[in-house]
């Protein structure tokens, strides 16, 4: 409050300059229940809340990290801190530091693995820097041409003890995808354009690849190490023959020009072909066996080569299940023919048909299956009518076991079934019609392709192979030839529905 007059006592001044009557007297209001302490503390509750919030935020932003490892690379390829370590395309760690070692002979990369990447620090894990590579063998690592480099990782044995220091590879290991292959040494007299990654083919199908090409100890030969994929092990016998298929032959004669090339890919990349003639010793061999590598195949080999069973057991013969599926589109009933694969089995309850889910008859109250036909590959067929759904054994994962009364059709005995415990290497089998006798068609499914799902209880098959023709086909384990499930094409893609105890 200001007092314009400089003189006089304070009390006198206020008395004189501001007449009390000039100002209204403030009203007095009762404030209910003196909230003094409560109001003092109310805001402090918010403060407490904020304190908790701040602590929580700090906690969440603290970097959670897994094990820390160092990897030595002979070449850094421009790797920088904050670059990532990826496994199967997703991030499993981060580069924290890139330094030169004291002798300037290598690059030390410190990597902080994510908490989930705990298994990736086991001894035997291999690391390499993924960078764009353009060669005749193909293009790889193209995403790193524009973006940042990253470290690829191939996990070792998960039971091995954890390590801290690793030696990085100069390039991605050629065998990264095919583990436990059959390693063979082929001795030839020249390189013939072969290099690591060149394919090994059997009648034009890739069955393996070249791992290394180097000189033999006496420098008189070239030793080529090849790896045959696990599933083609059975093709290689002691009598197997290997020859070079790189490049192409141009044969100019009186009859014109004859061009002989395997495929464009082997023409560029070089390759090795393999065949196993039946005569001679056909005992299976193990890793490390040495074969001669010749430049040209002998025609007799190809002629002599008969069938080599890819699987060491007899395959079940399947039947076709055909019928029509009625649907209603905007009130208009329509019917669509469907064909799927089924397997006839003989159990304690008589003959059954094991197949995928079938449509119900139009009147749903009856709960009977719509009429369908079972057709053998040779052409004969039998119609199945009026099967009540309650008589069938339907499983959650979409398999159906229908009691049928047919005879004279090929059946599988219950001894051929096995309930699997975990995903394993398997093949989907169906029988194709041919002139002389029904022929089995197989589609192999790798263990790596299978992943468990919690929802359907099936094993989802990854990869881009089309299995639509094998809907309902039995899936046979390659280890013992037992039927372990049924292949289904769900909305989410192909799955293997494993057999369970109740639909055995």
């Amino acid at each position, binding site marked *: 409050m200001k007092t314009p007059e400089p003189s006089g006592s304070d009390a006198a001044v206020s008395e004189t300059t501001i007449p009390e009557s000039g100002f209204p007297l403030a009203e007095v209001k009762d404030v209910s229940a003196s909230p003094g302490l409560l109001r003092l503390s109310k805001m402090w509750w918010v403060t407490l*809340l*904020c*304190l908790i919030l701040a602590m929580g935020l700090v906690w969440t932003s603290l970097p959670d990290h897994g094990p820390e490892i160092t990897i030595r690379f002979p070449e850094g390829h421009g790797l920088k801190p904050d670059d990532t370590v990826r496994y199967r395309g997703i991030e499993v760690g981060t580069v924290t530091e890139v330094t030169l070692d004291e002798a300037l002979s290598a690059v030390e990369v410190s990597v902080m693995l994510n908490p989930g990447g705990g298994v990736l620090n086991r001894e035997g894990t291999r690391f390499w820097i993924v960078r764009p590579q353009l060669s005749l063998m193909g293009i790889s690592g193209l995403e*790193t041409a524009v973006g940042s480099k990253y470290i690829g990782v191939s996990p070792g044995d998960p039971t091995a003890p954890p390590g801290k220091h690793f030696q990085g590879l100069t390039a991605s290991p050629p065998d990264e995808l095919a583990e436990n292959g059959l390693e063979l040494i082929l001795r030839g007299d020249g390189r013939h354009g072969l290099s690591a990654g060149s394919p090994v083919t059997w009648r034009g199908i890739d069955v393996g690849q070249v791992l290394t090409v180097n000189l033999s100890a006496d420098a008189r030969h070239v030793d080529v190490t090849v790896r045959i994929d696990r599933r083609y092990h059975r093709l290689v016998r002691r009598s197997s023959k290997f020859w070079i298929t790189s490049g192409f032959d141009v044969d100019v004669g009186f009859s014109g020009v004859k061009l002989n090339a395997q495929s464009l890919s082997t023409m560029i990349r070089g390759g090795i072909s393999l065949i196993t003639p039946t005569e001679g010793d056909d005992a299976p061999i193990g890793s490390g066996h040495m074969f001669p590598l010749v430049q040209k195949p002998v025609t007799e080999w190809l002629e002599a080569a008969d069938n080599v069973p890819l699987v060491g057991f007899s395959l079940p013969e399947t039947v076709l299940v055909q019928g029509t599926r009625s649907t209603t589109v905007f009130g208009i009933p329509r019917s669509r023919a469907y064909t799927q694969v089924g397997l006839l089995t003989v159990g304690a309850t008589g003959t059954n048909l094991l197949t995928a889910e079938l449509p119900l008859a139009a009147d749903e109250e009856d709960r009977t299956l719509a009429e369908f036909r079972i057709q053998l590959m040779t052409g004969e067929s039998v119609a199945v009518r009026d099967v009540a759904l309650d008589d069938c054994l339907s499983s959650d994962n979409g398999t159906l076991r229908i009691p049928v009364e047919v005879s004279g059709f090929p059946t599988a005995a219950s001894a051929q079934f096995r309930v699997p415990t975990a995903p394993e290497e398997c093949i989907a089998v169906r029988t194709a019609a041919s002139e002389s006798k029904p022929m089995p068609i197989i589609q192999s499914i790798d263990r790596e392709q299978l992943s468990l799902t919690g929802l359907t209880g099936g094993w989802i098959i990854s990869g881009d192979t089309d299995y639509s023709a094998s809907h309902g086909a039995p899936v046979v384990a390659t280890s013992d030839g037992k039927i372990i499930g049924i292949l289904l094409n769900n909305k989410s893609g192909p799955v293997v529905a494993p057999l369970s105890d109740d639909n055995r």
Partner: protein
Amino acid sequence: MEHRACHCCGLIHRLPSLMPGQQAVCTRCGTGISVPGCRRVSASRTAAAAFAALVLFWPAILCPILQIEKLGHQQQSSILSGTVELLCHGNWLVGGIVLLFSVVFPLTKIMLLLELSLLEVLHRRHKALTLRIMEHVGKWSMMDVMLLAFLVMLVKLGNLVEFHLGPAVVAFIACVAMSMIASLTFDPHAIFEDS
């Protein structure tokens, strides 16, 4: 008898003597002029909000606020690390402005509010000066503007680079809210009132 201006409409009143549980209100607009222990309550509320803002201030500037992923390069930055980076790159003007307006001034404002309402470390004589500094600094503490900048970035850059907002954003929003509450509840009249 004491005189007091209503801080809402400015009318000057004489204050009657008040019993506990009573409050003097303005005859014109009905705003509370004083309650017994008014200073204590108001100051306490301000102190609480200012303290909350102070607590939240540190995660807001230290925790990662943005995670930018551009062409496979990933970068995480907090307000402070971003500012330091600006300064390191020689952007003295921009870095200095950001540092001043979004770190130094807000912190000063919060600290001064806390001082005025709770701590009273400084002598009573400096209260007016402190208040004046606080009011000037407060005008330039622009945390809320920074928040707007992040929003603009979110809308504009969303297609160019992939970015995620970090935990600091939550702290930042809460800190802005709490410091606003603190300055709203702060009653400059109360600090001069004799207790």
